[in-house]
């Protein structure tokens, strides 16, 4: 009963959301058409039967690999569920509280509500990954019934893990700032370890390779729930009772991992234990480098930015992740057991180049998100006697300085690895600073012009035009840095002169772009963001 009511109103909200703008309806139609096109191409243009002879012999390997794929799907579902709930948690909490006033079992309200969140997360996996998996399994000669049962079990697993993610997201709300930061740092350490292992294995690091092998063996063993998910496929390969038991174990496992956390979260919520603890700070007036470098009000604005970054795990993670990935990849290869060689130098070059590109675009992606998180708080600045340009400058300065330090360090390291001379390094740094200047400037223009401040998730607040600008800029940047490096060999003088010109002009362009961003931001009225 409650499912029907909640679903009905969720659907009404969605339809109202679509009806607000024609572009949303067009977007939905395009999305549905693209999905249909994808399915038609997948199943009719390249029918699975056409490659059956090629992959029929690998049926058992395909079944074995599904346990690893299952782990990744579970990981994606958990993180998707958690991020969905945490990023729009204020709205979710209000909706939940409104629903809990109804004379219904709170457990069912939570369940239905979390199911809706899971649906949103799982839709991406179900729409794209599932058809590909089904295609591979049919191509490998598995029967339609087996593939059907496996698909249902996989969908159930996606639901269950995104539900766990959503529950973890709700629990996350009760954490204080310090605990959230610890969790964010722990996640980054986990990510770092993952990359360390992966790139260590790529560089033939014995320890990393053996660890990965052990993990894969555990995942594909009979005690692994991720293997149980693939039990229908194993049953078709080898009709053993073990796989029937594993099928029921999989169902039981999914029910248990869904029910127990749900029960716990409902109890904690109703007992009022899901409120964040009162956190107290030690306030001292200290004079730091910001006070020497900047005038008021920029000084105050930058101080606030740094405080917010230090206490907002989302902003911190988006700023630190590129660095951590870069350092870990370098470390993983440096610690590998092989001696450095020409091949290794080339590999480092291939790996470090994207990191360099990532460093140069970080401000462009970070500044709009940082501005979008302000939402109704923009009123503080619009009602204060500051120039909006100062507000935007403060948003710009932190990621800009951060990217400069990071990009220049990576460039120096890259220069050592490929054994280039100082002049080459200088040119790369000139070009890099020029690129960072321009991308940061573009970031402020996007922040001022193409943000929907009413979007529940600031990370997805960019309008279509904003996303296109980001996409095109990344596309262009991806060519500029490597192209410079290649042309440096053939046309050194032209490149040196161009680098100097770009370096100088980029500062002017950057300032002009910041002004443009500020001019656009100034046009906002409170009804645009509140």
């Amino acid at each position: 009963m409650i499912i029907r009511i909640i679903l009905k109103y969720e659907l009404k909200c969605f339809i109202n959301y679509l009806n607000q703008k024609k572009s949303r309806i067009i977007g939905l139609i395009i999305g549905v058409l693209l999905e249909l096109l994808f399915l038609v191409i997948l199943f009719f243009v390249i029918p699975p039967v056409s490659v059956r002879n090629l992959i029929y012999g690998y049926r058992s390997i395909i079944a074995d690999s599904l346990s690893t794929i299952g782990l990744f799907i579970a990981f994606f579902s958990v993180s998707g569920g958690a991020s969905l709930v945490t990023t729009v948690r204020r709205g979710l909490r209000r909706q939940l509280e409104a629903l809990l006033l109804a004379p219904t079992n709170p457990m069912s309200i939570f369940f239905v509500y979390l199911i809706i969140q899971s649906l949103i997360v799982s839709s991406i996996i179900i729409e794209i990954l599932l058809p590909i998996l089904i295609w591979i399994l049919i191509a490998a000669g598995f029967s339609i019934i087996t593939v059907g049962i496996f698909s249902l079990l996989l969908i159930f697993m996606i639901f269950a893990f995104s539900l766990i993610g959503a529950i973890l997201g709700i629990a996350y709300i009760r954490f204080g700032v310090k605990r959230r930061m610890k969790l964010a740092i722990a996640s980054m350490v986990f990510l770092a370890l993952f990359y360390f292992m992966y790139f260590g294995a790529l560089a033939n690091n014995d320890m990393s390779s053996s660890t990965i092998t052990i993990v894969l063996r555990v995942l594909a063993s009979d005690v692994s729930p991720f293997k149980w998910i693939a039990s229908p496929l194993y049953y078709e390969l080898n009709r053993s009772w073990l796989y029937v038991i594993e099928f029921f174990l999989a169902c039981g496992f999914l029910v248990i991992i869904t029910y127990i956390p749900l029960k716990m979260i409902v109890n904690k919520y109703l007992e009022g234990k899901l409120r964040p603890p009162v956190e107290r700070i030690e306030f001292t007036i200290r004079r730091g480098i910001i006070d020497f470098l900047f005038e008021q009000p920029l000084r105050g604005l930058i101080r606030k930015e740094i405080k917010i970054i230090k206490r907002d795990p989302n902003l911190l993670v988006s700023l630190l992740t590129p660095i951590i990935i870069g350092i870990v990849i370098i470390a993983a290869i440096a610690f590998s057991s092989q001696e450095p060689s020409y091949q290794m130098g080339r590999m480092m070059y291939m790996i470090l180049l994207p990191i360099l590109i990532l460093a140069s675009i970080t401000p462009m992606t970070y500044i709009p998100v940082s501005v979008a998180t302000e939402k109704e708080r923009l009123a503080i600045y619009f009602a204060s006697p500051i120039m909006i340009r100062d507000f935007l400058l403060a948003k710009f300065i932190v990621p800009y300085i951060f990217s400069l330090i990071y990009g220049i360090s990576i460039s120096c390291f890259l220069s050592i690895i490929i054994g280039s001379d100082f002049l080459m390094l200088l040119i790369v740094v000139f070009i890099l600073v020029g690129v960072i200047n321009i991308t940061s400037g573009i970031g402020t223009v996007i922040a001022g012009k193409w943000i929907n401040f009413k979007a529940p998730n600031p990370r997805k607040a960019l309008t279509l035009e904003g996303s296109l600008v980001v996409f095109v800029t990344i596309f262009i940047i991806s060519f500029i840095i490597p192209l410079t490096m290649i042309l440096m060999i053939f046309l050194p003088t032209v490149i040196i002169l161009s680098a100097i010109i770009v370096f100088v002009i980029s500062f002017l362009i950057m300032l002009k772009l910041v002004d443009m961003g500020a001019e656009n931001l100034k046009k906002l009225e409170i009804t645009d963001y509140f």
Partner: protein
Amino acid sequence: MGILIITESFIYEKKGAELAIIFNDVTKIYDSKIALQNFSMRVNPGEIVGLLGPNGSGKTTALRIAVGLLKPSKGDVIIMGHSITHNPEEAKKYIGYVPDEPPLYENLAGIEYLQLILELWGYDIADKMNEIDELARILDMQLELNDLISSYSAGMRRKIALMAALIHDPKVLIIDEITANLDPKALASLAILLRGLKEHNVAILISTHILEIAEELSDRVVILHAGEIIWTGNPKEFRKEVSESKRLEDIFFELTGGPEVEQIINYLRRYTK
């Protein structure tokens, strides 16, 4: 030889040097809906003006235009001689604004939020610590100043917003929905504080639904209905001149319509069935 162009708002800027707030023929249109129409009003230094009106009458729109959060479709607001549309940075220096739902940073402590506000107004918090302490004592916030705002109740949020509006010594104080989320003690303290500020020539513009508050605090009341001023005057003098028994509530209901008594009775009938 240069050509001297004297705009209307320039004239008002010069004229308005002695006045604290001038709403000069302000109109605000959202899409095709008129929220405020030809709204003209003045507030003198040391005067408290109460803006009254039913929901959707344009009170918040008028206040938001005065602080620069909305741009007027027509007209201008002059604050201490500076146009809010043409010279906003200068005009806003004089304004302390308390919105009905204060936007705050959840991850900042109350004291850090005040530091931010002071820095926006060009002050150093070290010079204002005594004032912060005094205001915190008045509003019962001493113990919560170092707590993160995420743990604040609605009342505390409102109090920190009040402190933020007062801490930079505004010459013009604008408070939307003055009673919102404040307990009786805080409200009484605020009333005493406002009277004190009035004595020190601060111009105060408040909006409220509570007619007694408007009558008690304001030197002048402006009643808005559908974006237009329908009555303005001093409620106490009005009572003396017209009838001692006639209260502001009676004027308000006469002008904007009173409660739908018949419909209420009809609705309540279901409980007798």
